[in-house]
């Protein structure tokens, strides 16, 4: 369609093309599957249950279970989770079910252990609350350490960037006003056929961040398009393949489906700042994202996708062949997706505490001082940490009372020999929770607070945090 509109114009394209197929294959965390086990004898009203050590939730009556993609195995966390359980079941593999219950007169059983395959289940439906984001942001990291996120592994100091989504091939991007996509739209889902059952959670059409809620029969799906995945230090998820046919009902749709990667623009976002509103560093098109390199602060940065563009194309191709050989029929939606909803932030009754609320002035010294002078300062000011700064007040290092003690014991006199250069730092707008996590992770008890130019604004210590929590 894209080439045809470019070469022959919208009018010709509208007459020539009946349907445009789309596709996407990416990590979609708000996914899961509802299963019905059938009744045991004597019957059990399941209270808690596990499949392959992954706790599954029990939202309804006796033997209905929901396998959430992001729930992790209790024995292999961060490696195996609900997404993998769904994939294994789709693949026809046997899984182990364990359950406990409190026992009632009608459901006396309190314990259960069995193995099942998908053929043993009454129902096995994918039921995803939020899938198929219209577009997503490009993620990068300003911190001086590697971070592990749902957007993958992000190297320090903007050394790489990641993105998700298929751009011009994305289903919702090809019908941005939801003229043909709504409740009841038949779609390619995980290698089988499924349906859109409404807008997804956090659906935000005004900002071109539309989402879908979908359902489909897992028994007819293929693990090529339903794939469990594990993101290090983030957790498990499910890769879901979705393809939607867009019937070209009018010239407007011919024009809209001709959308190109260069027309789809998204924000480059700094995931190094773990706040709801992460800093935006610029804009980038999907064409640039797919090229492998983008520019941040005039520097070339390698970028790659987290979702498979190869599989996205394959999905669009398969859907096309299904339509051509009459094994897939397009359906008119019973109701359109909303175009006026907004995605609100959470109402919070308690304000989070941030680093700036406990920051106090740091005791400082310069590199050319003697160990003895710094030792005296530590005693006089009764602190354990002295921050080393340069003439401009910028961070050069840190020394602790322990370092000074060691230096005295070894007869070292010059401070420059004992300064710790690799300093773990924090920023005023970092949450205290994050700051304490850093201290625990690095087994340290204080963090210099610095600004963007590494100028020292103060220091926070684990004692400050303990005092605040003790209030």
């Amino acid at each position, binding site marked *: 369609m894209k080439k045809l509109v470019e070469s022959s114009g919208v009018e010709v394209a509208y007459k020539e093309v009946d349907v445009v197929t789309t596709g996407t*294959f*990416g*990590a979609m965390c708000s996914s899961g599957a509802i299963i019905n086990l059938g009744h045991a004898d004597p019957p059990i009203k399941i209270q808690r249950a596990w499949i392959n050590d992954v706790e599954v939730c029990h939202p309804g009556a006796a033997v209905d279970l929901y396998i959430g993609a992001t729930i992790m195995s209790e024995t292999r966390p961060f*490696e195996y989770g609900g997404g993998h359980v769904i994939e294994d079941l789709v693949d026809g593999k046997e899984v182990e079910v364990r359950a406990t219950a409190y026992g009632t007169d009608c459901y006396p059983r309190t314990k259960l252990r069995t193995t099942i395959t998908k053929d043993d289940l009454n129902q096995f439906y994918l039921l995803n609350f939020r899938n198929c984001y219209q577009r997503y942001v490009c993620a990068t990291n300003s911190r001086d350490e590697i971070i*592990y996120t749902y957007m*993958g*592994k992000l*190297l320090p100091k903007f050394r*790489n*960037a*990641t993105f998700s989504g298929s751009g011009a091939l994305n289903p919702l991007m090809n019908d941005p006003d939801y003229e043909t996509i709504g409740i009841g739209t038949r779609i390619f889902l995980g290698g089988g056929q499924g349906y859109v059952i409404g807008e997804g959670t956090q659906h935000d059409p005004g900002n071109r961040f539309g989402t879908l809620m979908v359902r489909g029969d897992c028994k007819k799906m293929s693990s090529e398009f339903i*794939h469990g*995945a*594990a*993101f*290090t230090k983030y957790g498990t*998820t499910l*890769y879901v393949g979705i393809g939607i046919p867009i019937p070209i009902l009018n010239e407007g749709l011919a024009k809209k489906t001709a959308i190109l990667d260069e027309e789809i623009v998204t924000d480059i976002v700094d995931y190094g700042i773990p706040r709801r509103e992460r800093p935006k560093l610029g804009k980038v098109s999907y064409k640039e994202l797919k090229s*492998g390199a983008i520019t941040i602060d005039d520097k070339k940065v*390698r*970028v*790659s*996708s*987290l*979702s*498979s*563009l*190869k*599989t996205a*194309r394959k999905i669009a191709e398969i859907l096309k062949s299904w339509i051509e050989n009459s094994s897939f029929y397009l359906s008119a939606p019973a109701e359109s997706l909303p175009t006026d909803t907004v995605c609100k932030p959470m109402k919070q009754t308690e304000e989070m505490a941030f680093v700036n609320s406990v920051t106090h002035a740091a005791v400082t010294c310069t590199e050319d001082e003697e160990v003895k002078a710094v030792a005296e300062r530590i005693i006089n000011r009764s602190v354990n940490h002295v921050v080393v700064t340069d003439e401009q007040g910028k961070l050069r290092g840190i020394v602790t009372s322990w370092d000074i003690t060691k230096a005295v014991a070894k007869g070292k006199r010059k401070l420059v020999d004992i300064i710790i250069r690799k300093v773990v730092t924090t920023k005023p707008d970092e949450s205290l929770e994050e700051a304490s996590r850093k201290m625990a992770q690095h087994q340290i008890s204080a963090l210099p607070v610095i600004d963007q130019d590494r100028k020292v604004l103060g220091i926070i210590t684990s004692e400050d945090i303990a005092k605040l929590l003790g209030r």
Partner: protein
Amino acid sequence: MVRILLRFSEKIVEQPITAGVILEHGVPISIVAAHVDSHGGEILAEVPSTHVEKVVDAFREKGVIVTFPKLIEVDSEKCFNCGACVSLCPVSAITFREDFSVVFDEQKCIGSPCGLCVDACPARAIRLVEQHSSGLIQ
């Protein structure tokens, strides 16, 4: 060319060992990656396959620990071509083909001194492996 990983202890790190081996044996040694400080260091080097044994012996005589670096192995059955590893690779050993298949170039990979891609793979399809088992490995 064969890749060897040289580890220098704190004691010998300040000696001109690599230069010595090159001069004494007249073998070209190319440094692929290096991380050296006053506490010791690691150098990933390439030597012509015809001179491997000689070079390895020469380094070991000078107190260097020589091993064959682990390289990356991609399980193509498990890989679903997402590309999460591509932007992490500092030497472009992992790239996209025209059709967005992820391809791995063993020749370019610097193996265990890097390993950035290993824990970034959502499919857990990448692992570090021994390059080859040779009698030279201590």
